[in-house]
């Protein structure tokens, strides 16, 4: 009885606390009275948070990376400085800038770092009081943020700045970040909506979303550090990692022992994320003129759930060569599991003299389609003088870690253990004799027959 009362009391306190927090931010009155002066207003009650942000991937767009081959130890990598063919540029060569006039005489602002939390006068990775003051706290924390104010513009001195909504109304309406908060930036990565990742946070596409979960229910943020997974193409991380097994699921999540045995060698995503989406290929050597007079790299677009993944062993370390970024692993290393990936292939210019992939400044080709002028501009920015650009393809394996479908859509025995199944057992390292056994109905026939609905 005492135990029941104690539990009820604790639940009561938690519930009332959550109701209060859902109702109103404790500092609302202060903000309404004093107005909002940017991060220093937040720091009145949350000291140290602005400085804390400056140490995260969201601010630096880079971090030390310890699971990718061929990187310089001690250096930081991320969209700040990486060169690969989904983007072929980075924050350095494609720093937010005004694109030169196109044939119609029009210009526009563009850059990889348009999603950065600063105002662009304080840039990716900057530090110090000015950087702290430039943080756009409200873009993540306000439920009344006016996104029409977050647009680039040019000052009289020619500096490009990114606008922010620092209104008292936005500051007075704070709430827990929703999935929308994250997708404002993350859905437009790679040159357009759902181009890079190809997943939309939608109840139709994900059981977690259907159960009213939001991004930060899984990516549980602590001190502005976001836990992330091991996508072979997502290198920068805050030092915190995410896994299905933990708070919500165990390492033996199924009632069926056979399925739990599978989970020892097969990642959850393999069966529970049967489809992927987003662009499957891009050609940065050939830009297409758009109806608005600007040019874009030619892209094979795919919608959400429109692409079948490929499956490979992955030991969470990454092969990183000029023509290939993808999983390391094998069935015999004792560390790997089979994971699903979206394969992306991108064409861009390589330096014939070094074999390295070259970067591209998008400003010239966006204005006139001249891809080589973009390579030349990027080379100049990076101080590369000795180069000979030759076109070539790069293959990238993107982790397929979202779009967890309902149970009925998950892969089943007959998805894999049939001669035309989704797993290529030969490429996964199995012998002909093993494949014969792995694709025999003997493995599942009896159980599947019992489970199938009667006609």
């Amino acid at each position, binding site marked *: 009885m005492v135990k029941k009362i104690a539990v009820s009391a604790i639940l009561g306190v938690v519930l009332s606390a959550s109701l209060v927090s859902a109702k109103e931010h404790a500092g609302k009155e202060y903000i309404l009275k004093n107005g909002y002066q940017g991060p220093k207003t937040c720091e009145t009650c949350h000291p140290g948070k602005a400085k804390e942000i400056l140490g995260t991937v969201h601010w630096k767009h880079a971090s030390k990376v310890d699971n990718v081959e061929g990187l310089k130890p001690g250096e930081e990598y991320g969209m700040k400085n990486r060169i690969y063919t989904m983007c072929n540029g980075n924050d350095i060569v494609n720093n937010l800038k005004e694109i030169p006039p196109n044939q119609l005489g029009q210009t526009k602002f*563009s*850059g*990889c*770092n*348009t*999603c950065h939390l600063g105002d662009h006068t304080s840039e990716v990775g900057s530090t110090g009081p000015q950087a702290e003051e430039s943080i756009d706290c409200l873009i993540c924390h306000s439920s*009344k*943020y*006016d*996104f*029409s104010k977050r647009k680039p513009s040019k000052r009289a001195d020619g500096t490009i700045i990114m606008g922010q909504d620092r209104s008292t109304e936005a500051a007075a309406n704070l709430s827990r970040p929703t999935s*929308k908060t994250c997708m*404002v*930036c993350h859905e*437009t*990565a*790679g*040159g*357009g*909506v*759902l*181009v890079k990742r190809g997943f*939309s946070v*939608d109840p139709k596409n994900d059981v977690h979303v259907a159960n009213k979960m939001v991004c930060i229910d899984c990516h549980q943020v602590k001190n502005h550090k976001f836990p992330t997974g091991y996508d072979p193409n997502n290198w920068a991380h805050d030092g915190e990692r995410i896994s299905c097994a933990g708070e919500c699921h165990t390492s033996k999540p199924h009632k069926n022992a056979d399925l739990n045995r599978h989970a020892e060698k097969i990642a959850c995503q393999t069966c529970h994320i049967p489809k992927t989406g987003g662009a499957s290929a891009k050609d940065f050597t050939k830009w297409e003129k*758009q*109806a*608005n007079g600007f040019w874009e790299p030619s892209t094979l677009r795919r*919608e959400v759930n429109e692409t079948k993944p490929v499956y490979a062993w992955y030991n969470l370390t990454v092969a990183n060569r000029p023509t290939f970024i993808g999983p390391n692993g094998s069935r015999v290393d004792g560390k790997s599991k089979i994971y699903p990936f979206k394969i992306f292939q991108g064409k861009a210019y390589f330096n014939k003299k070094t074999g390295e992939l070259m970067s591209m400044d998008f400003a010239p080709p966006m204005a006139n389609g001249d891809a080589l002028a973009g390579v030349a501009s990027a080379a100049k920015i990076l101080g590369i003088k000795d180069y000979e650009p030759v076109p070539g393809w790069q293959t990238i394996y993107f982790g397929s870690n979202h779009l967890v479908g309902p149970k009925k859509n998950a892969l089943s025995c007959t998805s894999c253990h049939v001669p035309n199944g989704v797993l290529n057992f030969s490429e996964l390292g199995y012998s002909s004799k093993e494949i014969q056994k792995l694709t025999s109905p003997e493995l599942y026939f009896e159980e599947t027959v019992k489970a199938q609905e009667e006609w």
Partner: protein
Amino acid sequence: MKKVFPVVLMLAVLTVSTVAFEKTASAEDVKMVGSITKIEMASDSTSAKVTLKDSKTGENIVVTVADESTLDKFKDKRIVDGDEIRSKYDNQDGRNVAKIFKKTAGC
């Protein structure tokens, strides 16, 4: 009578297939890129009529948007007048109903 029945049956089949074909043809998807010139939210906020100026033809096309995610983008001004949109729609009962409605811009 025996001769008339097959002819009537054939005519019936022909009529049904013609109607079905017309319906399919009218439901064909149209793809376009255009800039927003006007966004009109319905009074119950469950849909919006958006006028897009076709970048190729200059023609104004009114597209009805009903998906929650896009409507939310109108509400918090993530999508506003002047934004360039890539849209796919089909004609349903005289309305161009959007199946895809995305800003062309990305980073």
